């Protein structure tokens, strides 16, 4: 039996609040990418994967006690709550559970407004800045759900929540904890939107992962969490696992601060490490949920990495970022949840909007397809060369 089991998942993204809502959109092929509505950037001509609710509404739904929180916290609290409820954890279980949360935006959605107030009017809103740092979202969500064990906050850009999953799995295997609630959350902010815009890797229109004509990514926002448990804990609680984390790997591309190496060195090493941990051969992988941001460099680099790892036998693969946008720190856990849904439904979700697939590799899956799935590999590749792979398996 697998060593690290998953007993609960929760998700909020531009294609819905909760697992059922997200699954319905994935199956119907309906994207969440749309014209900007909540962000209020002056560059309103860029499409985004926004969660279709105001921050106030998200806070109300999550049951957070105070009225004003960063959007990052609101998204995270909702998703983490769903995961914990699905796993049916008792308050005693929660009291000793470890919480590993990932974010890059943290409180920046509020900080940037406060900073503008400072620049324009000299006002220093210290109370807002107090909630800026990354650990504030982790601590607030943990307090809200009464998670009492050790807390960790990971911030490694776009691979952050994949790393949170890996860290939780390693802690369970090391015997440091029996239950780890892991995942990540990132809300839209002007800081990140303009940051990516300054890098000239955004597409103003709907992105096209693995398409020859792709020009860039669409930003998204969201959160997803998983409840990981040891076999002993599952047995004690008589819980029903829904999947397992069978492999994981993190490596560094060491090529450039933002762009991947042409041959995808970091991604290759991360995938190989994950396969080794899982005790699997490349041919055992039935589907790859690619990082597939739709930037010129990523999709080319990642395709090369897939070729290096899988040789002539590239498994079915797709990027679900044309559904959700690139959700930054939340991407790893959101895509892990999508991979688990694939395992449960025994179908793969498409790379939407891919009309002219790249030619240096097989075309990605472009419509919902039934498939026999036991092992799924998911990639998340971040700035700073941070390359992560998670392997999820059917139980």
């Amino acid at each position, binding site marked *: 039996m697998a060593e690290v089991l998953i007993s609960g998942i929760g998700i909020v993204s531009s294609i819905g609040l909760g697992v059922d809502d997200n699954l319905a959109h994935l199956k119907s092929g309906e994207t969440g990418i749309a014209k900007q509505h909540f962000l209020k950037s002056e560059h309103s001509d860029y499409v985004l994967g926004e969660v279709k609710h105001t921050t106030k509404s998200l806070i109300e739904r999550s049951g957070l006690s105070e009225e004003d929180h960063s959007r990052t916290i609101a998204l995270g609290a909702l998703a983490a709550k769903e995961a914990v409820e699905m796993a049916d954890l008792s308050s005693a279980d929660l009291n000793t559970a470890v919480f590993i949360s990932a974010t890059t935006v943290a409180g920046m959605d509020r900080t940037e407004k406060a900073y*503008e107030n400072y620049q*324009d009017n000299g006002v220093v809103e*210290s109370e807002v800045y107090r909630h800026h740092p990354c650990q504030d979202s982790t601590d607030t969500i943990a307090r809200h759900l009464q998670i009492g064990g050790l807390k960790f906050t990971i*911030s490694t850009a776009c691979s952050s929540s994949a790393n949170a999953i890996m860290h939780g799995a390693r802690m369970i295997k090391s015997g*440091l904890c029996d239950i780890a609630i892991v995942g990540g959350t990132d809300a839209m902010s002007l800081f990140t939107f303009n940051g990516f815009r300054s890098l000239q890797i955004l597409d103003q229109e709907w992105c096209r992962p693995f398409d020859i004509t792709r020009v860039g990514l669409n930003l998204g926002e969201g959160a997803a969490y998983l409840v990981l448990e040891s076999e002993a804990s599952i047995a004690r609680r008589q819980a029903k696992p829904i999947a397992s984390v069978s492999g994981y790997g993190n490596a560094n591309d060491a090529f450039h*601060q933002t762009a991947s190496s042409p041959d995808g060195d970091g991604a290759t090493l991360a995938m190989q490490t994950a396969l080794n941990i899982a005790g699997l051969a490349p041919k055992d992988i039935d589907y790859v949920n690619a990082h597939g941001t739709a930037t010129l460099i990523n999709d080319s680099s990642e395709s090369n990495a897939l070729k290096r790892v899988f040789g002539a036998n590239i498994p079915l693969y797709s990027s679900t970022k044309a559904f959700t946008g690139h959700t930054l720190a939340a991407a790893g856990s959101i895509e892990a949840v999508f991979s688990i849904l694939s395992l449960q439904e025994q179908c793969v979700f498409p790379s939407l909007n891919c009309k002219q697939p790249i030619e240096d590799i097989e075309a990605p899956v472009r419509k919902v397809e039934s498939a026999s799935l036991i092992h799924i590999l998911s990639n998340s590749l971040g*700035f700073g060369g941070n390359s992560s792979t998670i392997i999820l398996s059917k139980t």
Partner: protein
Amino acid sequence: MKAYIVNSAAISAQHTFDPDAEGAEWINHDGEFISAVEPNYRSFIPPALIRRMSRIVKMSLACTGKILNENTKLDAICVGTGLGCLRDSEKFLAQICESETAMLSPTSFIQSTHNTMAGQIALIGKFPCYNMTYAHGISSFDNALIDGLMHISEGKDNVLVGGGDEQLAFVQTIQQDLNCTAGGTKIGEGAAFLMLSSIPTENCVCLEDATTFSVDSPNEFAAEIDTFLTKNNCDNSEIDGLVLGCSVQQVDSYSKQVMSAFDNIPALAYKSISGEFNTAIAIGMERAVHWLKNQETLAPAMIVSRDKEVKKLLVYTASGEKTHSLYLLSKC
């Protein structure tokens, strides 16, 4: 979880990086904010890259440059930072506030991500290994250390663990507003890195164990110290010295409680050296290693001073609202 600390380096508000340098004497810092004593970065970073780098990245590269040589094969890099690259975050924010529609320079955005410190260590040293960054306030370094120790227990050999934070004028304004400098607290900055190994070397230090726990009362706290030492087959009388997360001027109640559990043994208040900041514990750990290896400490930072050989040290720091961390170190 156990590991050997085979090398270490720290940049702090005292001459901890290069203690043998000319004029390296104790610095009496006035004011609420104390700056790090920075080395000549040209010895560690290609000059062309220095100009654009944030100070915390430069400090990290200098520390790791001192520890690593061109033959080092790293298995993992684990870094903690409370606030990350502040200067670049503010620079980019200021740009957007000025004009969202103008052409924005991406450099400060790229450099503002929390994992820039760990990322640059990998990029400049060409290390393809595991690379992780934790940003959990005053537990950031502890997060990174737990990860590093896990790697050692998983059979890895050379693991770099470090932490650092930089100051920023705007953040100082906020800190004053939030009374962070009340009671004479001095806010510092700096970085420290440890090289963990599964294999001891001559004159290394053994990190025998580390623990983090939450308590609701002083009695529970006392019991946790006992539990930790008993678990490590260590009698109180075997602890030769303490390294505490406080300053000589402001000894908090938990640090006092740690001291009272031992018989008037030498106690170093590392925040008299580092000042107060999220990853100051990294400096504390480096100072503990230095004390064991060199049998010397910086006198003005001692709460209790005694000429005594030290073979075992207990390091203590608060790591959260009700959370505390203890580390047991011994001379190899």
